[in-house]
């Protein structure tokens, strides 16, 4: 549990951090809140020669309401995200998912950008970003580019962010008037999800008009349950929600681990999708 020695550089701006990454080359590693990176270093699973700390870069922090969307700086802590009034009212599912991450100490250090860039297949916020069609702003040597959520998550611990790039912010389309819920299924209060289902639902006249659904830990990347989204349109009863949720296991090829084998994960995907949607929609 003692990391290999490394150099430490505290970046003061995105430019500064990009320069440090360029200088450090292959062996440089960015650090946000350090809540995923530090355990990796301590277990000697990774041994960067330089760690570039971007936790004090002002441009990476803060939450802005930009009319149709809410833009969250990559360096904003989980604690700040889940307590932000705009997030709570327009992105309830994000606030819920964030509140379910780890414990208060970790949420005061860990960042939204760090969690998304880390892209742990078990993480709780990636399925929200995917379901809500978030947009990722990434800075590199040649300037900034925008990546859609569908293209951002590329595999377990792999994203569109290159080794010499920085995730700057994430923009979420506002879902005013939508219901939202994050159904986290785990074995102990502070354990990782066995499965998590993010659901956002717009109701019209007691019926589901639109739904967005993302699942975590059912594969190497978060999963968008498009078939369920379509089947839910028009649903108004729990039986209809459950019927539509049967599609949640379509096109899934989950892995087996100590907590769930393949059958059980597919079963949970269906059951928990129904529960998440029902809660988001207020249908019981």
């Amino acid at each position, binding site marked *: 549990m*003692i990391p*290999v*020695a490394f150099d430490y550089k505290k970046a003061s701006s995105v430019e500064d951090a990009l320069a440090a990454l360029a200088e450090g080359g292959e062996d440089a590693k960015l650090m946000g809140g350090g809540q995923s990176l530090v355990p990796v270093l301590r*277990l000697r699973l990774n041994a960067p020669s330089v760690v570039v700390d971007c936790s004090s870069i002002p441009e990476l922090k803060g939450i802005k309401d930009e009319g149709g969307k809410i833009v969250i700086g990559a360096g904003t802590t989980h604690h700040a995200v889940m307590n932000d009034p705009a997030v709570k009212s327009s992105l309830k599912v994000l606030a819920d998912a964030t509140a379910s991450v780890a414990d208060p100490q970790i949420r005061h250090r860990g960042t939204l950008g760090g969690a998304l860039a880390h892209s742990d297949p078990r993480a709780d916020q990636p399925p929200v970003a995917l379901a809500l069609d978030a947009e990722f702003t990434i800075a590199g040597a040649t300037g900034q580019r925008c990546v859609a959520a569908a293209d951002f998550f590329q595999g377990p611990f792999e994203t569109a962010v290159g080794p010499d790039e920085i995730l700057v912010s994430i923009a979420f389309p506002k879902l005013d008037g939508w219901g939202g819920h994050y159904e986290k299924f785990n074995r*102990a*209060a*502070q354990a990782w999800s066995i499965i998590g289902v993010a659901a956002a639902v717009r109701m019209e006249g007691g019926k589901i008009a639109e739904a967005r659904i993302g699942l975590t830990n059912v594969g190497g990347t978060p999963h968008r349950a498009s078939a369920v989204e379509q089947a839910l349109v028009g649903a108004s009863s729990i039986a209809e929600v459950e019927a539509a949720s049967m599609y949640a296991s379509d096109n899934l090829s989950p892995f087996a681990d*100590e907590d769930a084998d393949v059958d*059980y994960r597919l079963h949970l995907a269906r059951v928990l999708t129904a529960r998440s949607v029902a809660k988001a929609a207020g249908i019981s």
Partner: protein
Amino acid sequence: MTDVVDAGTALGRPIKRKEDARLLHGQTNWTDNIQLPGTVHMAILRSPLAHAKITHLDVSGALAMPNVVAAFGAAELGELNSSVPCVWPVTDDMVAPDFPALAKDTVHHVGDCVAVVLATDAVSAADALEAMSVDYEPLQAVVNMESAISPGSTLVHEDKGTNTCYVYNLGGGYDEKVKEADVVIKRRFINQRLIPAFMEPRSVVAAPMGMSDEITMWTSTQIPHILRLLIALVTGIPENNLRVIAPDVGGGFGGKLQIYREEILVAQLARKLGRPVKWTETRSEDMVATHHGRDQIQDIEIAAKSDGTLVGLKVDLKANMGAYLQIITPGIPLLGMFMYPGIYKMDAYDFQCTGVFTNTTPTDAYRGAGRPESTYAIERIMDELAAELGMEPMELRRKNWIKHEEFPYTTIAGLTYDTGNYELATARALELFDYEGLRAEQKSRRDSGDRVQLGIGISTFTEMCGLAPSRTLGALKYVAGGWEHCTVRVLPTGKVEVITGTSPHGQGHETAWSQIASSILGVPVEDIEVVHSDTGRAPYGMDTYGSRSLAVGGQAIKEASERLVEKARVIAAHQIECSPEDLEYVDGVFQVKGDPEKSQPLGAVAFEAFTAHNLPDGVEPTLSAEATIDPQDFSYPHGTHLAAMEVDTETGKVTVRKYVCVDDVGVQVNPMIVEGQVHGGVAQGIAQALYEGANYDEDGQPQNANLSTYLIPSAPDLPSFITDTTCTPSTTNPLGTKGVGEAGAIASTPAIINGIVDAIRHLGVNDVLMPATPMTVWKTIQAAQGGK
């Protein structure tokens, strides 16, 4: 809190623990905080394989690394490579493999010690490990106990010719008696492997002390006194030159009731290098190198008449020793042997235990040590028998348990339970639980086919603790006594030292022992210092494990305090010029009966004893007294635990909705500490039922040896426990106390599983494996419903 017997001023009061301020603020001396000049840090190269020949080991690469002082494999260590002792040879023909501090030519489990490096800082030592060169030739790993003892199995220790450590038998009358039974049921229960996972990882510092021959060891242990003796024996360091100190110790649960190879290595290398050596384990090391607990396969058979009267019990146990024998590894299942009959009367009991070697981390004591396993088996099978007979499970228990008027009662396992009142504890528990109300709710949920089913789990447990007297332990071939020592001193300023041979690691002895002494000496608790866990300051002692500290050590404090008062009375009488019989002792002051103006406070007597200017003839100077107590017998706490369990039949997730326990731990010195011990114990037992379980794959690779996959529950996972107590004072010790350290952990596991099975029995389920994870419960329901 009910029925607390108040035996004096401080006894029986729920006063706050005086050690807590320093422990909670971290303002204390954990072993790893000890920084001695010139210290070298040890790091250990551990085997990544469960079973392999070491075909090549070259530590010289490490020597070339920065700040490295020395490096050793078994060859370099030579004669200093002492073996870890086992002090409980349970049978004459028990097989005990060599257990050298560093593996010689074969590694036997993942985490086995292969080589060490010492550097002037811990980071350099960790880095230097990677510069060692080692090659292994993998051998087949022996993991499964049943295949280990099948003919033709690979051997864990080739030279021993067998994987069977021992076979132990008790009883013999069952097969004859069972003919009288109307109902016989057989079950196989698995008590899975657990990892103690105490909060403070192990840490050891050993240092040669200046110009003297003394070596001082600070180590995070439960047993400084026994450790000193055994380290002296195996290393050859003269016992009188070895001082062992257990500073504040952050938990143990039996995991620090051990002599670890790392402790031997640190002691030997401090001596060899002539400078302080320090080693602190990482959590990853802890999970594979600290001994594990439980890991038993229990084949159990119970026989009864059709009216529920028990006829007999037969237990065939396979107990996983792991790869080596630690100090009391083989004896752990035998502590359980006595407790399979639980609180019930029956006419026959056969027991057999086979100790089995496998290529896994050695097992040894873990909170309850053998007794949780047996309690689990008997309390589970009582529920199964009730179901078979169509009886209410509490009714079956009531029919068979020892009635309060039948105590003392000698059980079929040969123990004599001195006191108890199962009726009283049960009545109180049922009342607090709202048993009838919950049964009604269970029925309505069943009738409506609710997704969430409700079950009630019962555990009417007893246990034996405070292992004593020494003669009995001798008969069990346990190589240590069951006595305990205490010296009480009143210093010339009137302050008191209580010097105990017990060794707390979180239990609050400093407060409780002060309360006992205070109640006799009349000195405020604040003026009493409890001195412990330092072989240089404390007399010989037998340390802390098996819920023995109060039931045994507490008696020595009482006795020594009383002896001290008697000595002081003689001096005070001399000072007042009266006869000792004329004096009464009130709140720390000797006064003449009927003439309280004529008095001497204890402090003044102590000062007189110190100057010795005017002592009566024949009285020795200084005011101190000692006592070494060997109690008459074990003590037998008991209680009734009830759990209301909700099972989500769709996902398999279970929730502890309500937990009530009424424990009888005899006289309580400090009810708040008792309640704390019950809470922690119950949580730990629930952890076995629902969360924890150390798994290996078929190659002997640990599957969850870290705290992210080996799940330990925390407060949000548990309900608020409803606790209460009853009190039938123990008659085996003068304070009337019983142990409480393990009771909760022994009682709660079967209550939880019984509750789960009760919730889904109507779905065709009659057992659930531990830990009852959501997947396990869901699969169990699926299988019972005829799915896959």
